[in-house]
């Protein structure tokens, strides 16, 4: 629910209540005022009639309302004495409306020439049901008008007043660590927005700084490690070259060099993995995976021959994807290398390329692998000492980065399927 609708919902309920209460009070007050004014009018009329009666005695014999609004009847003294001025509501037949209509009636008595008279004066009254109806409609219109104007004003306000807020919201939504800049400053007069903006700026800046220094640290650490490894390997190579060592010593030196080379590979893989996960690769280009597969198959041929593994490429479509070429090569070479290494003598590696996916199927162990665990870092079968355990983690990181899906399944042979959304 948007901010606009949210505030409107509460305002609508609140206004409904307020207007209802207000309507009741207003109605009662207004009616009271109407009675008051009517009664005052009747009292005034009474005085006028009595005054007139003293000049013109004929009106003393008007004992029916007829076309006038008063009647006078002579009454006994005792009766007249009991009469106090009484205002009350009553109904009277009105020929115009052809119905009984409410009227205000004043009953009073006066004395003239020692004779007593009862005087009744009427005044036509407000029709309460009409009044209520009118009031009801007026209130409905008021309610609609209020809600409508709030909607319009709120909408306008949202656009105007909340503009900085939405601008910050947009920036925050687009904010990606390591990809774009921290939230920038937004021009606003509103104190709360200023505070929010300042907080956002310092928060995103701090996060970016931390991220960058972390990134820098991993990179620098990896690079710093490279130099001592380089020195160690080179010194051992020089030592072996001198030829002063016995054969067993040479073998030991060879082993140490191999271990150091493994360390180098591990270090490089970690650096690559952190680079991929930190999105430090530039935008790519349209890469033909068919081409890369064919090139790699050629490069791996000697290795596959040595392992006595047959490699076949089946192309049933042209697969091109927008990605970094180096990463495409890493992705494919890691998968191919695995398919060759984890194979058996006389086994096969089948690479099938279609328009939207490629499959790499290899023979190998008769045991299916755990499709979840194989993509985890340092997840490896204990037997292969040269494996860094990062090959498939790197593959997974690359596929995640390009929103490509990779799945593993086993049906007598191991198959890796990489599907592209092209």
């Amino acid at each position, binding site marked *: 629910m948007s901010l606009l609708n949210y505030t409107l919902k509460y305002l609508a309920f609140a206004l409904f209540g307020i207007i209802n209460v207000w309507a009741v009070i207003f109605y009662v007050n207004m009616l009271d005022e109407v009675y008051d004014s009517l009664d005052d009018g009747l009292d005034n009329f009474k005085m006028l009639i009595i005054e007139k009666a003293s000049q013109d005695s004929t009106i003393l014999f008007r004992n029916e309302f007829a076309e006038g609004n008063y009647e006078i009847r002579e009454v006994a003294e005792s009766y007249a004495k009991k009469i106090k001025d009484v205002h009350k509501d009553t109904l009277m037949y009105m020929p115009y409306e052809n119905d009984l209509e409410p009227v205000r009636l004043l009953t009073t008595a006066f004395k003239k020439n020692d004779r007593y008279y009862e005087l009744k004066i009427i005044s036509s009254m407000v029709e309460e049901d009409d009044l209520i109806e009118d009031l009801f409609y007026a209130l409905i219109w008021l309610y609609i008008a209020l809600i409508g104007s709030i909607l319009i004003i709120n909408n306008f306000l949202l656009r105007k007043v909340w503009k900085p807020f939405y601008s910050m919201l947009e920036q925050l939504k687009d904010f990606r660590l390591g990809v774009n800049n921290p939230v920038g400053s937004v021009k606003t007069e509103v104190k709360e927005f200023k505070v929010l903006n300042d907080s956002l700026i310092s928060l995103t800046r701090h996060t970016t700084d931390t991220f960058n220094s972390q990134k820098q640290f991993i990179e620098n650490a990896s690079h710093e490690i490279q*130099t001592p490894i*380089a020195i160690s390997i080179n010194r051992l190579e*020089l030592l072996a070259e001198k030829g002063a060592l016995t054969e067993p010593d040479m073998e030991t*030196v060879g082993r140490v*060099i191999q271990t150091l080379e493994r360390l180098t590979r591990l270090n490089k893989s970690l650096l690559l993995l952190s680079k991929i996960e930190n999105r430090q690769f530039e935008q790519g280009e349209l890469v033909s995976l068919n081409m890369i597969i064919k090139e790699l198959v050629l490069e791996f041929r000697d290795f596959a021959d040595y392992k006595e593994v047959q490699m076949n490429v089946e192309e049933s479509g042209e697969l091109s994807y927008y990605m970094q070429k180096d990463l495409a090569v890493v992705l494919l070479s890691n998968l191919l290398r695995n398919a060759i290494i984890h194979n058996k003598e006389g086994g096969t590696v089948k690479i099938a390329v279609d328009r939207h996916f490629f499959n790499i199927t290899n023979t190998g162990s008769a045991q299916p692998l755990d499709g979840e665990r194989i993509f985890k870092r340092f997840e490896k079968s204990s037997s292969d000492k040269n494996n860094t355990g990062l090959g498939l983690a790197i593959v997974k990181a690359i596929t995640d980065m390009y929103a490509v899906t990779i799945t593993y399944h086993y049906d007598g042979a191991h198959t890796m399927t990489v599907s592209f959304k092209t």
Partner: protein
Amino acid sequence: MKILIVEDEADLQDVIRQSLEIEQYVVESAGDYTSALDKIIGFEYDCILLDIMLPGGNGLELLSELKALGKSDNVIIISAKDSLDDKLAGLNLGADDYLTKPFHIAELTARVKSVLRRKSFLGNNTMILGNLKLDIDERTLTVNGDSLALNRKEFDILTYMLVNKNRLVTRTALAEHVWGDHMEDADDYEFIYSQIKNLRKKLKDQGADVEVQAVYGIGYKLIQL
């Protein structure tokens, strides 16, 4: 041939110097930006090995200085950073090659020789050892004047071994040089052996007076018989 090593890591400097001195080069070294600049201004070198991250300045700035001085010394950048940007920047500034740490001594020797060869014998890219004559551009090999056909891998192996003649070439260095970076991780590089075996047989059958010897547990060495 005079070579300058610009590298702040004293140990690495020492290793590179030792290795290059085996090849009979005159080697000088500088450990920081200023002393490197002094040497570059004062002397002529056939090849400069240049580290990018230096105390007191950036190696790439030295390249610009070199250019500004109008010197045409060959430069090989040696850097711990395997970044495409740095590589392109370096090559654009006139560096001849880019080598990422850690590297094998055999690879360094090969790169230095390749750079020097390009400078010294413009166009004449042949290597001669004993009765072997190898033309790098034409990719042909003659033994005793008779041509010997080698496949692509065998030729690359032989070239690499010839550049590093009498020197130890580790299996990894050979694999990375000939088969490319994708082969790293690939088991024990035992697969190289079959190529070496074929090469040895061809050379022997043709009566070549060089031999690829196995250095137990580490790699190979090409020697003249």
